[in-house]
């Protein structure tokens, strides 16, 4: 059973703006029956390019219906320029969040909106010009790259959650990984795990630990005004020094064990023990 927020349930059970606007100024159609979800969005705009009405028809699960419904609520009253800035994250946020496996429902909403705006303006979307990567769900490389950048995706599994690419036969997984590496310019998390060797020299360990600290751990600590420095690696013992706000934080020991150690075990070597350097 999915854990849907009350907001999702509300919009699913009592959807707003169901239907199709006759003589709509813009129509956006995405998805297909085969894919398991599809959305047809129609919008009406006035002389100042303000969206005055929006209606949807959706085939899909509860989160697809809820995403469509909340989207129509969000965009009425916006100008086309404002609406063009609505992201899938905005849609998900408005619903109080979506289960991660369902994020593609919010992406479908954003895509339909873009298509409707483009239709209004009589332009062709660049997405349709990309190269199809996932044959099962007809997802292009441009769509994948955009999702990676907009939602900071870091693994193939996340790409699947957000775009559905790779969720069918799975043949495009390698290609998705390539796109991911090329887009974010670093080795993705799942690749790192796969390559995790059983025995490492201390030098290799230090390199891997530094990589993991920089990419996965420091950003989180810095958000809270803290930081971490690698002091030494002795066998499986990783000596670190906490900096900034971390030094005076009462939870720093928990952070060290529950967060830093767990992350390093996951990403580098599962026998590592993290200790604070005195």
């Amino acid at each position: 059973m999915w854990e849907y927020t009350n907001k999702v349930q509300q919009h699913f059970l009592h959807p707003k703006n169901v239907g199709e606007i006759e003589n709509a100024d813009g129509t956006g159609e995405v998805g297909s029956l085969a894919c398991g979800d599809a959305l047809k969005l129609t919008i009406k705009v006035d002389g100042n390019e303000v969206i005055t009405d929006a209606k949807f028809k959706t085939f899909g699960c509860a989160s697809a219906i809820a995403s469509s419904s909340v989207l129509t609520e969000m965009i009425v009253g916006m100008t086309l320029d404002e609406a063009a800035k609505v992201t899938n994250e905005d849609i998900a946020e408005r619903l109080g969040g979506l289960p991660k496996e369902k994020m593609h429902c919010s992406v479908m909403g954003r895509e339909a909106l873009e298509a409707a705006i483009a239709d209004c303006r009589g332009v062709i979307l660049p997405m349709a010009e990309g190269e199809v990567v996932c044959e099962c769900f007809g997802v292009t490389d441009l769509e994948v790259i955009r999702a990676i950048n907009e939602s900071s995706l870091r693994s193939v599994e996340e790409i699947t959650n957000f775009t559905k690419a790779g969720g069918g036969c799975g043949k495009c997984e390698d290609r998705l990984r390539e796109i991911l590496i090329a887009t974010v310019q670093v080795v993705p998390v799942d690749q790192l795990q796969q390559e995790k060797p059983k025995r490492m020299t201390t030098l290799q360990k230090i390199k891997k630990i530094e990589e993991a600290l920089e990419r996965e751990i420091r950003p989180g600590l810095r958000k809270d005004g803290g930081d971490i420095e690698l002091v030494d690696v002795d066998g499986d013992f990783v000596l670190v020094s906490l900096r900034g706000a971390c030094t005076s934080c009462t939870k720093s020991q928990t952070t060290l064990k529950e967060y830093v150690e767990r992350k390093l075990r996951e990403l580098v070597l599962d026998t590592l023990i993290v200790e604070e350097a005195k």
Partner: protein
Amino acid sequence: MMDCRPEQVVYMDNNATTRVAPEVVEAMTPFLSDFYGNPSSMHRFGGQVGAAVRKAREQVAGLLGAEPEEITFTSCGTESDSTAILSALQSFPDKRHVVTTRVEHPAIKNLCEGLDSLTGHKHRVTRLPVADDGTLDLEKYREALSDDTAIVSVMWANNETGVIFPIAEMARIAHEHGILFHTDAVQAVGKIPIDLNKLDVDFLSLSGHKLHAAKGVGALYVRRGTPFVPFLTGGHQERGRRGGTENVASIVGLGVACELAGANMEEENNTVRKLRDRLEEGLLKAVPKSMLNGHKTDRLPNTTNISFEYVEGEAILLHMDRYNICASSGSACTSGSLEPSHVLRAMGVPFTAAHGSIRYSLSTYNTEEEVDFVLEKMPPIIAELRAMSPFWKED
């Protein structure tokens, strides 16, 4: 937490799990409280518990037409399945071919897909296709068997459609070729008569919670004389065939559940079949563009799988949930994957229909009033969702 009470729900999801029969609960209770002895102990306090396990073994054997020593208790159907397949592969290390079907439960499907990495040896797996109605082609089955085949594993009845496979004949054909035969009978045991004495079946898996016993207990039938390698090695429990202290209470409950199922099978089947048919006919009549998935007669008496075209299964289930009606769907969204059920796809059910499939699986605890309640609620639910669907054209 527990805000959906059993007396409120219309439970039609019995292929997922069943209500534990009150008689089963009553039989289990003493072993969860006072009689905690270890069945392997030398003292009488434990010994009497051992006697209860022995009785349960006889009851399970009785339902299957087997000998008690042919029954090994396990923790679930999945464990029984894994034990049987891996035992056969270890018993015949030179044979690296497995024959199964495209519609097996994940317990067999995923096991077979992962055999190479699990065992470190290369295997060949033949997955027999099914026809549109979910039935197997026995000619293709014969062709698939080879000198290299270690074991055939075919489910007795399908969990999603209820379609029953001709196990007696398939097991006979396997034995003609000197090949071991396993059947995952998790959905069949307790619902259709089984007499293993008369069959060429070497291994049979069953699960307690599908026939009104508790979760966490299953059994594996191993025909006497069949080579066997344990899956869980450890103590001498189950005559060395499955280490680990027995789940006594659940085993005792499984025994009682088997006895109940055997005693009332024909009568209960007739009642359940009537309810199922009433539901099925009513839905197909009341909802346009709805269709039955699976063979109409070669089928479990409790199961019906119906597709409502142009709507999505999860959305249907969540609307049903408002009325406390419990069922399942083969749609992609309910599985956590992005593709609809592998069973329906193997049957060639079009995507327009597979995404909107609902499985109703009944039990003797269902009533005619419940069936009529579902018949009243379903058509408006489907109509409401179709009104929202961009593919639905009213005509």
